[in-house]
């Protein structure tokens, strides 16, 4: 007979599991309920129109998120261009080349990197990186998409390294042995056999790193300059969707169109992150084809 404590514990644990779903559903509900009035009032068009973000303009306010979407895309893609090669190479090093001693040394460092508060990274970007970038490219200000991309890339690195390393380690050792026995060097084996065999896991690691980068707020708020103009290059100042919400939310009039428009931006971020994570999850489920 199942005792009463057994049943109680079961209920408690199930509730904790369900809580996760309830939180997520709650967040989605809040986002939808607060953005809907804006979407109903304006329709979808104005948010994606080739226009400006100027909700406070007298007479004809405009609510185009387009420039902020460009900003988010530039910072995110820039971060991936910076972080994926470094992250995958570091993962290959940890999984294939490092001695056990080196692995023991480097892995905690990767974890520490994951724990650095984003405001500290932002401070570093503001004080150290921005002047360097300004001098290197002869700019008035180093607060650019480039700066944000590098720092967000650094923030995405631990995710990419950890997951890519798992994917590389999961490649059956038989493949490596076959390659080495055919006269392959260690480098050829890593580059032509191991990394391709781990490709879906590595892609997933990049996507989860991307999920991390898209929503990042504090660092980009501090280092990208926050100008809501259409960026021409990585050396322009940009404002991302996340920074845009953070900047405006403090002094927006509650339940105004502006307020609802910010929630539309939030909903957009949520949907992008959700899709990216879902895709990454599907890729991770697709284990490397093992011959058994």
């Amino acid at each position, binding site marked *: 007979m199942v005792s009463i404590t057994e049943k109680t514990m079961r209920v408690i644990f199930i509730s904790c599991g369900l809580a996760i779903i309830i939180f997520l559903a709650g967040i989605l509900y809040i986002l939808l309920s607060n953005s809907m009035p804006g979407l109903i009032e304006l329709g979808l068009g104005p948010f994606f129109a080739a226009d400006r973000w100027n909700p406070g303009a007298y007479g004809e306010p405009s609510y185009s998120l387009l420039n902020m979407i460009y900003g988010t895309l530039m910072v995110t893609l820039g971060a991936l261009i910076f972080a994926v090669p470094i992250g995958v190479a570091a993962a290959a090093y940890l999984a294939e080349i490092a001695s056990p001693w080196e692995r023991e040394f480097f892995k905690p460092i990767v974890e520490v990197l994951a724990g650095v508060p984003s405001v500290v990274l932002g401070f570093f970007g503001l004080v150290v990186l921005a002047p360097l970038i300004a001098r290197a490219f002869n700019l008035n200000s180093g607060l650019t998409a480039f700066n944000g991309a590098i720092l967000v890339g650094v923030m995405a690195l631990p995710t990419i390294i950890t997951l890519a390393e798992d994917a590389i380690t999961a490649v059956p050792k038989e493949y490596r042995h076959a390659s080495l026995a055919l*006269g*392959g060097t260690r480098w*050829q084996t890593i580059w032509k056999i191991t990394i391709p065999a781990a490709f879906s896991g590595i892609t997933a690691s990049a996507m989860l790193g991307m999920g991390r980068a898209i929503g990042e707020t504090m660092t980009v708020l501090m280092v990208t300059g926050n100008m809501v103009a259409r960026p021409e290059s990585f050396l322009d100042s940009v404002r991302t969707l996340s920074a845009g919400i953070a900047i405006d939310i403090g002094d927006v009039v509650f339940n105004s169109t502006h307020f609802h428009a910010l929630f539309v931006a939030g909903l957009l971020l949520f949907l992008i992150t959700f899709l990216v994570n879902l895709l990454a999850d599907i890729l991770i489920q697709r284990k490397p084809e093992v011959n058994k």
Partner: protein
Amino acid sequence: MMKTNGNVKIDETSVQESAEEKPDQLNPDLENEYCEVKVENLNFFYGSVQALFNVTVKVHEKGVAALIGPSGCGKSTFLRVLNRMNDLIPGTRLEGKVSIHGENIYVSNTDVVNLRKKVGMVFQHPNPFPKSIFDNVAYGPRIDGLKDKAVLSEIVETSLKGAALWDEVKDRLNEPALALSGGQQQRLCIARALAVKPRILLMDEPTSAIDPIATQRIEDLVRNLCNDYTIIIVTHNMQQAARISDYTGFFLQGEMIEWGSTSSIFTNPQDNRTEDYITGRFG
């Protein structure tokens, strides 16, 4: 150097009796006699555990040499000594001399990559890469720097024909290798090894993971290949050794108890332990 337990019998026969027993192996200059593989006083250690004891053997060109013995007797370890695959296991150590084509392969300037191109290997479990059939066979030549598509196609065709697989796969070279059956995969692995143009082929229980019909095809293949390659095969299956090999070595607890022509090992073993094993008293 000569020990009493017979594990260095090959030296005795080659020194004293080879003229009568195996005239084809007669060579006046025995010290510098050319051998495909020549192993002298080999001791091998996994950390502090010794896996091979004072193994001495010479393998001559072409033909099939089979290594038999119970599990854990060191026959696979011995095989992996010959292409230095044991290097991948940390903490291994080796004493003695291992020469392939007259060159000691355990000196500091040995080019291991080159060695493995000369000494191919087929593993116990078929291990094709998760790539197409063509790309599997072309892998070796490609990492060697060959890019010419026509030459590659020719090598792939020759190798697949050499492994008796061409007729079954010629119309689907671009399909994934992992879609093949186990026996086909193993022949693909043989073709992949042949594409590197090795001179010696090591096979580590290549049929233990596949069905009897596929096993027979591999055995026929081994008999064909031994006209062009020196094949050293580890097998758990004594009947297989008797069927396909010209020479047989019997390993027990890390020692090579007896080495000789397959017919003499199976009909007239010199050592009691060999006799006990091949008659099925243990193992």
